[in-house]
């Protein structure tokens, strides 16, 4: 079954260094199109590093160094000839803490499209509505589009950030523990949203919460630190298989709560 699925991104022998410290050691895994891939593992195992290397947010860390390849539709995003702006346009991101811009809800969503030169009011109106609807936020904010996005509740802010990310129609969306700062109800809404979004996007989600990974994802990657504290891929599989019949003893120990 796995071989017939279209692959959106392919991570090949990826290692990430922060100066001389190896944070991630030779990770190889696919990201399937229109599927949700979860990355789980204990704190400090390199989950976020792996996720951030998929749209070159690692470039922001001084002294970060990449080895290996990350292919997006077969092209290496770390190719020196590749434009990082284009990579990030195609691979969007939602962060752990909601980070709306200090501007109106409308301007938050229109931020990305405006960067790419879309200025026509009617078109933007339509795009903003569509994005907010996709993020299941439209009904709550349609009457206050021109109020500050920072005045919304935490859960609403996070859905606003999702609307902002999907307004530029990326192909992949990376989510870094998108619900960890939210209450259970808001978390549930985000999870339902992820389920809907995978029809249009390929999603990679980092989560601390194994139940969440089991609920929302189709595939799961389990990372663990080796003796030098570098993150290594222990197991990658279909989520149901990984959680019910883990191949590796360490995966079993982790998902049954024996450590981490």
């Amino acid at each position: 079954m796995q071989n017939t699925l279209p692959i959106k991104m392919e991570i090949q022998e990826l290692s990430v260094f922060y100066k001389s410290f190896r944070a991630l050691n030779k990770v190889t895994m696919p990201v399937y199109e229109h599927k949700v891939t979860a990355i789980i593992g204990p704190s400090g195992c390199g989950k976020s590093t792996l996720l951030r290397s998929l749209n070159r947010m690692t470039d922001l860390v001084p002294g970060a160094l990449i080895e290996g390849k990350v292919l997006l539709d077969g092209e290496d995003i770390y190719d020196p000839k590749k434009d990082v702006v284009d990579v990030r346009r195609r691979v969007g991101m939602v962060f752990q803490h909601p980070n709306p811009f200090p501007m109106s809800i409308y301007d938050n969503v229109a931020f990305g499209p405006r960067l790419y030169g879309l200025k026509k009011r009617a078109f933007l109106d339509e795009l903003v509505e569509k994005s907010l609807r996709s993020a299941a936020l439209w009904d709550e904010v349609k009457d206050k589009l021109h109020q500050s996005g920072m005045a919304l509740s935490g859960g609403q802010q996070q859905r606003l950030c999702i609307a902002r990310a999907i307004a530029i129609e990326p192909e992949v969306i990376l989510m870094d523990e998108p619900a960890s700062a939210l209450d259970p109800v808001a978390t549930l809404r985000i999870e339902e949203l992820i389920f809907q979004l995978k029809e249009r996007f390929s999603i990679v989600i980092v989560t601390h919460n194994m139940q969440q990974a089991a609920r929302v994802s189709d595939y799961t990657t389990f990372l663990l630190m080796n003796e030098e504290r570098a993150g290594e891929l222990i197991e990658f599989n279909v989520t149901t298989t990984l959680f019910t019949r883990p191949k590796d003893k360490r995966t079993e120990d982790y998902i049954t709560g024996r450590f981490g």
Partner: protein
Amino acid sequence: MANLKAIKRRPRWYNKIGYWLQHGDRIWKALLFLSSLLIVSLVVWIAWRLWYQSTLSRHQFGWAFISPWVPSSWNPALDKFQAWPSIYGSLITSVIALILAIPFSLGIAIFLAELAPAYARPPLNYMIEMLAAVPSVVYGLWGIYVFLPLIVVPIGEVIAKTAGQIPGLTTFFGGPMPVSGLSRFGAALILTIMITPTITAVSRDVLLAIPQSQREASLALGATQWETIWNVLIPYGLSGILGAVILGFGRAIGETMAVTMVIGNTTGGGYSILKPGYTMASIIANEFAEAVSDLHASALIEIGVVLFVTTLLLNAIARWLVWNVNHRTMGR
């Protein structure tokens, strides 16, 4: 557990007093309340003294004292006083200084906070803070001997030959530029240099205080670094940057020593920035010691009132602006 026993063994009256004072919290509260009261009463006291001591001048000249439409004359020998030229001098020098300093300071602040390589930041920051700490009399001296002849005079001559020749603009840019360079323009440029470090340092701190998550959000949408700075960081820090600008304006309008040294200290001079003039602060500093007649002293104190009210008004406008920006962007 040992500690708990010690508390229990304290005498009853001790615990009672401790309870009544909320273990010192009440004392502290009272002390802090008193100190804030002190600030308020100080402001009221200054305002009242200024108002009271300017009575003579206020009764003598009325509103004409500050009116731009009355023929101005400032003649201590004839006991004739009119403040408009010095009010104009204060406003025009501060406004020019702000217009020149804002882009300059913001540029340095952005460079220091966002772009400068790590090794260049400490020395640059140190120099900016040094510049802010140079005493104003030193700026004045440097202005007279170096800055005016070398930089202000040549620029002033160019302005007189270009903008000064255009019919509508002659009023404001008409020459000739004084050979010494003593002029409103010279004062404005000195002020620019003096307020640049202040605005730079504060806006740099504002930019540095912006959460990294804002930069990440913008970059992750495919924005370039410049788009991130311009579209996200500046709006995020706008109220703080406005605060920095107001701080600079306050410094410019209140600056006394350096301005007195380079502005030429005359009360005539029309409206041209290339002419010597006075500012409110500099006329007070320059003439107060020699004010023989009561009316002269009273008139100078009334200028003090005008300066006081101007700064209060500016602060109020600034508050409103900051509130407005915060309300629009942050929703509070």
